């Protein structure tokens, strides 16, 4: 009913290998994009943007980045917070050193710098595997945070060690700083999300993505069929860090505006992004979005229900929130260990046949 694919015939290889082979999916994709770009900017207010949309979009970028490394290449990383900090500080240094260059270029450059740093910290992955690697990437996490806290050059010798984003404009509209209109910061992040998701999607289904997945499924076998593990693992680290760096830069410049490295990019951030991709579904771009949406909106949603609708004391709600989030995570894993993306896939399969499953 909802899902019509009868009559959806392919006559060329291009048509068969496109991102959304089913016409309905394609329409839906364009529809979501159109709503996101053309409708939402007129509807949003400060609360929706700052409390829900910006964190959702920015964490989505980070989750896409980590998903490339963990979901597609199988290298578990807990250094995400540290790499986001690299992006944020690179962006800050660039913004203050070259105030005349467009902020969007700074964000991309910050991603590039993070890619270099990420590749460096990815070197041990050639020897260390599995959970050992995960813990090893924590070395990057703790070292980077310590470094940014310690070396005053990174925060331009300010008295407190905090960095705050100066006001920058795109097409004459402020996108960083306190006077940014909600829709502008939303659109900037949306542009980057779309850009990152497109790149990620196309990389993962190309030659590089297939190499990554070969490494993930069994690295020795991959080596035998001619995949160079050095190249595959390091490119995965580079691409992943590039995305994570962009998200860190946006997190600092557009979303928070001022950060302190230990608080904003601490170990909790690394765990949070990892939770997102596992809940969302490893090895799926949609999973990255779903996981980010789940972990960003669920606490806010529970808070709204508990405090605003039911009028419970805030501390009880905060505690119950932990209980509920924990229970939901366990429930989802028991019901569907492969994450929300898998649930979505199953739902789609069902919808294709509905209402006549036989």
């Amino acid at each position: 009913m909802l899902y019509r694919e009868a009559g959806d015939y392919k006559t060329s290889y291009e048509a068969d290998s496109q991102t959304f082979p089913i016409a309905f999916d394609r329409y839906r994709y364009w529809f979501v994009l159109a709503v996101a770009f053309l409708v939402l900017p007129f509807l949003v207010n400060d609360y929706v943007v700052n409390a829900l949309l910006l964190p959702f979009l920015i964490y989505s970028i980070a989750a896409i980045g980590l998903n490339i490394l963990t979901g597609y290449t199988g290298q578990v990383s807990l250094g995400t917070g540290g790499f986001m900090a690299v992006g944020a500080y690179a962006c800050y240094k660039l913004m203050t050193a070259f105030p005349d260059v467009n902020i969007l270029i700074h964000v991309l450059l910050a991603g590039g710098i993070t890619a270099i740093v990420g590749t460096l910290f990815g070197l041990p992955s050639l020897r260390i595997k599995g959970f050992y690697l995960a813990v090893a990437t924590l070395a990057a996490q703790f070292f980077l945070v310590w470094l940014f806290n310690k070396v005053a050059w990174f925060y331009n010798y300010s008295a407190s060690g905090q960095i705050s984003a100066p006001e920058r404009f795109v097409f004459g509209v402020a996108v960083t700083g306190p006077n940014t209109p909600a829709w502008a910061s939303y659109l900037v992040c949306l542009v980057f999300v779309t850009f990152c998701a497109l790149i990620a999607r196309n990389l993962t289904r190309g030659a590089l993505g297939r190499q990554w997945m070969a490494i993930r499924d069994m690295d020795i076998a991959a080596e035998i069929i001619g995949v160079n593990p050095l190249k595959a693992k390091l490119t995965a680290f580079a691409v992943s860090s590039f995305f994570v760096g962009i998200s860190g830069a946006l997190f600092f410049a557009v979303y928070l505006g001022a950060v302190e490295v230990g608080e904003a990019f601490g170990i909790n951030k690394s765990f949070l992004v990892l939770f997102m991709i596992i809940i969302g579904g490893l090895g799926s771009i949609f999973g990255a979005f779903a996981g980010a949406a789940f972990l960003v909106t669920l606490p806010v949603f529970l808070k709204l229900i508990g405090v605003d609708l039911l009028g419970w004391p805030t501390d009880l709600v905060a505690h119950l929130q932990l209980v509920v989030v924990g229970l939901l995570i366990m429930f989802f894993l028991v019901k569907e260990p492969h994450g929300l993306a898998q649930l979505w896939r199953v739902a789609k399969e069902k919808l294709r046949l509905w209402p006549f499953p036989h």
Partner: protein
Amino acid sequence: MKMKTLTTLALTSALVAGSAAADLVIPDLSYRTGPYAAGGTPFSDGYQDYFNLLNARDGGIGGETVRVVECETGYNTERGVECYESTKGEGALIYQPLSTGITYQLIPKTTADEIPLHTMGYGRTSAAAGEVFPWVFNYPANYWDAASVMVNYLLEQNDGSLEGKNIALLFHNSAYGKEPIRTLEELAEEHGFTFTQIAVDHPGQEQKSQWLQIRRERPDYVLMWGWGVMNQVAIQEAANVGFPMENFIGNWWAGAEHDVTPAGAASDGYLSLNMNRIDTSLPVFGQIDSMVHEAGNAAGDGSNIGSVLYTRGMYAAMLAAEAIAKAQEIHGVADVTPAMVRDGMEALEITNARMEELGMAQIGPEFSVSCENHGGSGLGIVQQWNAADAEWVALTDYISPQDALIDGLIAEDSTAFAAENNITPGCL
């Protein structure tokens, strides 16, 4: 699909958040969970209970009832932003986030939204320069005052000279902990003492290295800028290495009951600063007990009444209420706006007579705020923990900081901030 669900969700929340009423709305960004809950809970209890008392006793402020909107931040910056955005739409009059991270977040945001921000003894020190930070207030005292008050206290103890002494600063390795370093460096130069910095990384559960270093180097005094678990461990470790407690001074966020009780009797004699006096016999506590707690309107379970942080939260609420009353007086309307409250804060004057009238005589120093000075008088007292009776005893009267030095540092930092952010200093 998910976009749509998200939008629906967002719209519902906007509807819920947008239900404004015509009271005086005071948001309370509290944290009763997470690593700093032990400090956040009593402060928030005191903050809310005082407003509830005003409602019960005086029918609010100037005839307008006060509505406290509590929002749990868990000391997390992102949740702080969410709380700010969800409460500002309700007509929030004044913010008191009790977190350095959230404060730095809110300084530009509240300035753009024109809502006053009161960071009482925390946050950004140079915000005392009212001409650069017109919407931010950090009276009655700030961290640089605290460092200077500590040194002045030590000067007093050493007959006016710290020449050749060795003073160590044990600090939380974060923006908060690093605040006093500049001031102490300047003071070290001026008074000729050696200044050692000892950093403790978050969360600060393991401080063996730091305390072995203190034991080796035997500084004459150790000052501490700590918060959360770091305080309890530091006091325990100080007792372990046999560092004399009366030479160990915490700042005002490292001097509450829960900081010293885990170490038991070993913590006896520990010193800390305070910006307000601790006196459980103040009449206001009796009123809170009878009019708020017995009526079932209390924020907490009542176990915190009169404790250090409860008193400070109540003191913060009193300052906010007085500023609102001042604003009502200036503008002649009861239903004030945030901008009016800012004017009230800038014209705030706290006198002994007024504090006595409010049932909290001598709770804080007398001070007045002006457009140039948002920082108050900077006075602080030194208090000592008596483990046997489980109470804090004030050792000194209010001690003044070295104003000339602090003012110079504030001017320097705020000018730099103004230049970086294209702000032309001036009164509103």
